[in-house]
């Protein structure tokens, strides 16, 4: 007997606004100073009136457009009512029957270079406010819980997928693509440590029966997973657990309601959470404090225009235009739009996309890490690096010499310019000597002075050429080793 794994995700993404969704309090991550970013609106004090943050709505629509969703021309706000200490009003302002967007999709590349794609349909994306944060007493002595409401009222987009994912790995890849997409269009920093991207996973199995039919196991929702790796681990564990349980009990979706589990990263297992006696009854109703929002086709077209080239399109273009591997394209695109622009200037300027990619993913990346810089503050501008690499493509500099110049540009006090490259090359005598006459003379001299290695080479000992090439290189500073090798071997083979 075998089975299919069926996974749907609910992802909460924090939008990158300065102020909260319905009031002017800051959205800054500030756990060290609890309860300093609150006001009568986000505390839910009587008489306070929420007013929608225009930027939160704009970023939400951009998010939905990037997910290929339909944007509703008319959307409204509802109260989702439940009691929990991190929810000061006793209800969360959310969207129920008329969300601002619905019916989109994301195509997830599931094989690095194979091009296999899983289309994940998006059921809906709606806007809502975040709750505060509870901190529990870990001593087990039942001390008070502490509540910090700094986060209460932070704008969130909740993205709900159809159950279209078929493995734990696909779920992780989907989340990685989603993060890349949303950071790239600048709607969220998706910082998982700070809770800017959180995920619930709905998991069950479709077990193949001998007669060809399939039987579904009860659905389990794994709550509040805060890393991609944990998402993968939680689903892997859940699949194993449900398969064993099914073999023992033969329980199907008809025998048990949906249940909720948590994930313990330390043990790598999911655990049962306390079930409420009654099914959740949120008694949604329209929020009378907030009026509806309408969106025109022109506004949607404007926002769509602002999206620019999305990461998936850029990845494909880098493959076609610059012959990059999916991996190299991914590394560059993952660093954001500014990094991608830098790469393109270097690639266009030096005329060799692969070489540009090698430098960007190795030399530049390493220097940025070591110096704690971003590409925006990197002291070597893209056009200067392009000029340096062009000298390599034109066989004016060896790669080794180019690295030396690159290091000198970074170490030097002076601004990194193309003139500076020229000066460093001249000072250090790094230019490749194109003088065939000088090289041939040195080769003749080296051959005359080294009868033994020459005889060895002629007797078929290829590696004997190495010592001879070294001597020629020392004699003609700045000669291209490739050229020396070719000319020397030609001479020896005469």
């Amino acid at each position: 007997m075998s089975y299919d794994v069926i996974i749907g995700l609910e992802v909460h993404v924090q939008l990158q606004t300065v102020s909260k969704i319905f009031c002017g309090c800051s959205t800054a991550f500030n756990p060290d100073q609890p309860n300093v970013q609150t006001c009568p609106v986000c505390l839910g004090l009587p008489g306070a009136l929420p007013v929608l943050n225009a930027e939160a709505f704009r970023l939400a629509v951009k998010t939905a457009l990037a997910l290929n969703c339909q944007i509703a021309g008319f959307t409204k706000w509802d109260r989702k009512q439940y009691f929990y200490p991190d929810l000061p009003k006793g209800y969360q302002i959310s969207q129920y029957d008329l969300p601002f967007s619905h019916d989109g999709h994301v195509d997830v590349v599931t094989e690095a270079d194979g091009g296999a794609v899983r289309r994940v349909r998006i059921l809906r994306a709606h806007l809502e406010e975040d709750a505060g944060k509870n901190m529990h007493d870990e001593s087990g002595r039942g001390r008070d819980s502490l509540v910090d409401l700094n986060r209460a009222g932070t704008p969130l987009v909740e993205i709900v997928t159809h159950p279209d994912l078929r493995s734990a790995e696909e779920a992780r890849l989907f989340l990685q693509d989603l993060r890349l997409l949303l950071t790239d269009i600048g709607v969220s920093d998706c910082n998982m440590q700070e809770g800017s991207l959180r995920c619930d996973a709905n998991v069950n199995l479709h077990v193949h029966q001998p007669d060809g039919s399939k039987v579904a196991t009860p659905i389990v929702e794994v709550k509040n997973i805060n890393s991609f790796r944990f998402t993968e681990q939680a689903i892997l564990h859940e699949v194993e657990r449900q398969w064993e349980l099914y073999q023992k009990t033969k329980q199907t979706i008809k025998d048990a309601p949906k249940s909720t589990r948590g994930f313990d990263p330390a043990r790598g297992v999911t655990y049962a959470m306390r079930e409420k006696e009654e099914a959740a009854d949120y008694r949604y109703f329209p929020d009378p404090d907030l009026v509806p929002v309408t969106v025109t086709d022109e506004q949607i077209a404007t926002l769509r225009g602002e999206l620019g080239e999305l990461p998936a399109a850029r990845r494909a273009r880098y493959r076609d235009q610059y012959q990059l591997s999916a991996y190299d394209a991914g590394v560059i695109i993952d660093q954001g739009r500014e990094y991608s622009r830098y790469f393109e200037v270097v690639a266009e300027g030096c005329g060799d996309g692969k070489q540009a990619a090698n430098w960007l993913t190795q030399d530049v990346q390493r220097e940025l890490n070591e110096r704690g810089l971003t590409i925006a503050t990197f002291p070597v501008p893209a056009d200067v690096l392009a000029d340096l690499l062009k000298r390599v493509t034109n066989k004016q500099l060896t790669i080794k010499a180019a690295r030396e110049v690159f290091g000198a540009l970074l170490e030097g006090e002076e601004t990194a310019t193309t003139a500076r490259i020229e000066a460093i090359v001249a000072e250090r005598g790094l230019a490749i000597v194109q003088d065939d006459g000088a090289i041939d003379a040195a080769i003749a001299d080296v051959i005359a002075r080294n009868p033994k290695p020459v005889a060895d080479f002629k007797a078929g000992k290829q590696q004997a050429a190495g010592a001879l090439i070294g001597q020629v290189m020392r004699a003609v500073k700045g000669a291209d080793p490739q050229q020396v090798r070719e000319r020397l071997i030609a001479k020896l083979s005469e």
Partner: protein
Amino acid sequence: MSLTSEQVRKVASLARLELSDAELSDLGAKLGQTLDYVARLNELDTDGVEPLVHAIELSNVLRPDVLAPSLPRDRGLANAPRTDGKHFLVPAILEG
């Protein structure tokens, strides 16, 4: 039409209200009257009438994304039954 004690108990528990048996039956009758009153709306013919999502015919009330002063912490915590000077304190929450 009176609400049953079971119905009242469910609504009360959703609102975190603890009611005595006497209150349950008393409220059952009173809530029933309220529902009967509202049910008179059912007499209207609403065929072809668009559902109303808001009583005020207004839309797109938005504010720019700019900071406004927050309350000083002691003012924000002022109405809390208990605090530690930094947080709201609530009885231990059980999870898991």
